[in-house]
């Protein structure tokens, strides 16, 4: 059976750490980077357990700053 696999990239310099994407991910795959900030001083988001990402795009859709790109493939 083919499996849908996804992965996301975050424009960490554009990210403001608002956490709306973290709330929106149904699989809880996103979190704020630990004790690190970008050049504006905002904590930024990282995708940690990316292996289970389905590429559903929820995180990217709710990001007000358009920081997230989602990629999806059929394995």
């Amino acid at each position, binding site marked *: 059976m083919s499996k849908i696999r996804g992965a996301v990239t975050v424009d960490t310099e554009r990210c403001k750490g608002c956490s709306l994407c973290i709330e929106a991910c149904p699989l809880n795959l996103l979190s704020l980077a630990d004790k690190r900030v970008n050049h504006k001083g905002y904590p930024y988001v990282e995708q940690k357990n990316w292996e289970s990402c389905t*590429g559903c795009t929820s995180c990217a859709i709710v990001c007000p*700053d358009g920081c997230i790109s989602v990629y999806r493939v059929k394995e």
Partner: protein
Amino acid sequence: MTKEEIIRPENLVCAKPTLMNDAPMHYCPGCSHGMVHKIIAEVIEEMQMEEKTVGVCPVGCAVFAYRYLDIDWQEAAHGRAPAVATALKRLWPDRLVFTYQGDGDLACIGACETIHALNRGEKITVIFINNAIYGMTGGQMAPTTLVGMKTATCPYGRDVNLHGYPLNMTDLAVNLEGTAYVTRQSVHTVAAIRKAKRAIRKAFENSINGIGSNMVEIVSTCSAGWKTSPVKANKWMEENMFKYYRLGDLKDTQEIRSKE
């Protein structure tokens, strides 16, 4: 499969709309303004109206909207966006013309321009970002501030005996004969964002086709003015704002006509 094998240009399914440029937006983290900018960009792209759209910016936090979306823009004096949009659309009838206004801009200083442009049936779309507060100037009470809601200028909460009642401009717009499509949406979940996008598309199509006026209110958050986090602001909005500002289409003359 490695992450590198998935992250390839041919596998891209969702990203920042190309009409939204790389200039960092000055909005606070999680601000609804960014979200609405994004869906406006997507709708204009989908309609292939990139070269034929003119937006009119307000005074308020969105005063710099023209920096972020690569379409034509005109800045208006505080509250006067619907008057400026009227002139633009009359002089340039083949353009998609919309205003982008906050609640202070639209419901207070610009209430007159808004009501008259809508009542004249100008072939424009009014996008109304209602966060129930003056975000830009530090969180003062707006005409739209909810009863009991605390702001910098009503620290004990809005009191109807002192401050009167919240002004519901979108409900008012329904009763104006010039309006064709009037709707109230939000952008706090994936489903809400999809609906809001469809609403903006419908309003924009009406505006292009000379069917007007059109008003799309987006019930929004201002976590800075509300003094909370963006995630909690969304919850507060769901629990408090939606009771007074009910979501959904309020008027659609085209739908009525198609059923007749």
